[in-house]
């Protein structure tokens, strides 16, 4: 149950070339479920692999449990890792797979059976011990990979997009299992994903990465409600936040904040919203349209309206919509960074 820390961690594949990971400094809490979130190429996997010791950093240090491990091989770091493909040893049975780390770490033979049983019971795979990996389903393989990871009682878990190989349907239940697993073991876990729903649902804190840089570290609520820049603001939330240019500032409005005027409290900014496209999703409707008559007339914005909301929001209709001024986020147009101090000087 250790703390993972990186100090100015950098990785360049070619001297003088672009940085895959650029001066990343972060520190996890004990027992935390920390998510590295970002699109492909953001450096999240590289960052994870450096923490695991599978890649050498170009600069900076890694500490696990307050100990500098930057030059240590993976096997000396007391970590466990679950790969995207699970990397189960195909020629070994499930039992032998789980036992392998015990043999490699020279755990006394007498303890092997007990530990294997403990790990397999924890994940409910006791009945699969004599099977081969190829005979297992995707979900079962994930559980075997987790059992293999936990059997050594490591100080941290590293998970590299373990759900991306599963069917969409399976993903939700596998996600729930992982969350339960974390609660049971309490081990510090670092979880890499490009799926922001996974990140929000599972993470204690989320590290949002883009092009090798950390854009923000915060709880799901913080990164969603108080995004540090336009990237974080538009990456989290689906459909993404609409950004409107006002002078040298970008005003961000989340779809669920742009609603029929009657439903908006606080200090409403009013617009005439003409619907150009509707997506009926059952529980809600996504309305794509334009803010007629305002200076943003030719920009498409999105509104998310609950199915229960009254009104005919079909294509071509226009409505009185509004957004609570206090909820609008302001970003500097050139740097993309969030501005929190200025009040919105609004001229529609």
């Amino acid at each position: 149950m250790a703390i993972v820390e990186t100090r100015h961690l950098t990785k360049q594949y070619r001297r003088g070339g672009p940085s895959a990971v650029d001066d990343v400094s972060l520190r996890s809490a004990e027992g935390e479920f920390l998510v590295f979130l970002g699109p492909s190429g953001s450096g999240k996997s590289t960052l994870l692999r450096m923490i695991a010791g599978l890649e050498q950093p170009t600069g900076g240090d890694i500490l696990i449990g307050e100990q500098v491990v930057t030059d240590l091989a993976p096997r000396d770091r007391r970590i466990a890792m679950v790969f995207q493909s699970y990397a189960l040893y195909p020629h070994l049975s499930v039992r032998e797979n789980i036992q392998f780390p015990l043999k490699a770490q020279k755990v006394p033979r007498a303890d092997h059976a007990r530990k294997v049983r403990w790990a397999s019971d924890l994940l409910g795979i006791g009945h699969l011990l004599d099977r081969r990996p190829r005979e297992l389903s995707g979900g079962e393989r994930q559980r075997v990979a987790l059992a293999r990871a936990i059997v050594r009682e490591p100080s941290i878990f590293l998970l590299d997009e373990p759900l991306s190989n599963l069917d969409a349907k399976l993903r939700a239940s596998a996600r729930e299992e992982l969350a339960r697993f974390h609660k049971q073991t309490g081990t510090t876990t670092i979880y890499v994903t490009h799926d922001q729903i996974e990140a929000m649902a599972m993470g204690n804190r989320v590290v949002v990465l883009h092009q090798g840089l950390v854009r923000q570290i915060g709880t799901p609520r913080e990164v969603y409600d108080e995004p540090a820049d336009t990237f974080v603001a538009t990456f989290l939330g689906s459909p993404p936040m609409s950004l409107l240019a006002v002078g040298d500032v970008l005003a961000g409005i989340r779809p669920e904040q742009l609603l029929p005027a009657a439903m908006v409290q606080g200090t409403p900014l009013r617009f005439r919203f003409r619907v150009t496209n509707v997506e009926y999703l059952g529980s809600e409707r996504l309305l794509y349209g334009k803010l007629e008559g305002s200076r943003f007339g030719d920009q498409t914005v999105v509104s998310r309206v609950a199915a229960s909301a009254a009104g005919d929001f079909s294509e071509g209709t226009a409505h009185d919509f509004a957004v609570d001024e206090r909820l609008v986020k302001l970003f500097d147009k050139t740097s993309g960074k969030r501005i929190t101090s200025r009040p919105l000087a609004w001229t529609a």
Partner: protein
Amino acid sequence: MTVDAPAHGAAPTPAPGPAPAPAPLGGRRHRFGPEARATWLGVFMISPAILFIILLIGVPFAMAFVYAMSDVSIASTGIHFVGLQNFRSVLQSPAFRRALVNSAVFTVASQVLVLVGATILSLALKDAFRGRGFFRFLILLPWVAPISLGSIGWKWILDSIYSVINWGLAALHLVDKFDPPMWLGTPALAMISVILVHTWRMLPFSTVIMLAGLTSIPKEIPEAANVDGAGFFRTLFQITMPMMRPIMNVALLFGVIFTFTDMTVVYVLTRGGPYDTTQVLPSLAFFTGVLGSDLAEGAAISIFLVPILVVVAVLMLRTAARSEVT
């Protein structure tokens, strides 16, 4: 017949084909329909090759057995059946027994050396490094060059007087300059020489095949082993090599066939000498059948190659079938 190809390299396990369409009440309509035409086209396209194989491999293969049980010679006109007489006389001949033992010894010894060498070399070639293509070119030379030419090259290297190996050994004071080893003139050394040449020739082939096997192992597996705590040797022996077993089988089986049935190395290097001590089954068959004009006995000798071929074929089929399950 529908067109439904299994994936490339899929096993010979029969996929349940669709039942042929039952003749509809209209009957005639389907007999020359597009699917039937496709079948006929297929038959037409495959028959030349099948015919050729039957006529020039199948029939001679059968004839080998017929000759072995006859008294055919190069001069004879007809074929007289003599039963198992040839086999009996062959089995009693000391030259044959020696050749049989030699074939086995040469094959086993060279293949063991090749397997070990190819494993080591393929591991070294696995990851890219500068100049790898150049080294690979040089490494492949023994396999690519015609066997007879490689063998004659070795004959020169192992020459009784001018052997460059002997010169080197003498320079290192490992042998007496005036009484150097007669590589091709002493029975024991001649056997070693033959094994050496076979190993030299087959090593590149097996290496390249094993390399293909190595590169097919997903990168995450050795990484997982590393994270799990395994060092270099544990990963190698408990993870990498077991996963390479199917491909090692393939390399081994081909190696056995190519070595066991080869007569060129022995013929060029030693002509079976000194005094028939390095004779192998194929070369003995050649000397008996072609140079000795006794086709029947020559055929009988070469028939003894068949059991090995059958065993290898069966093992190959099983390897291919088993690996399908992964």
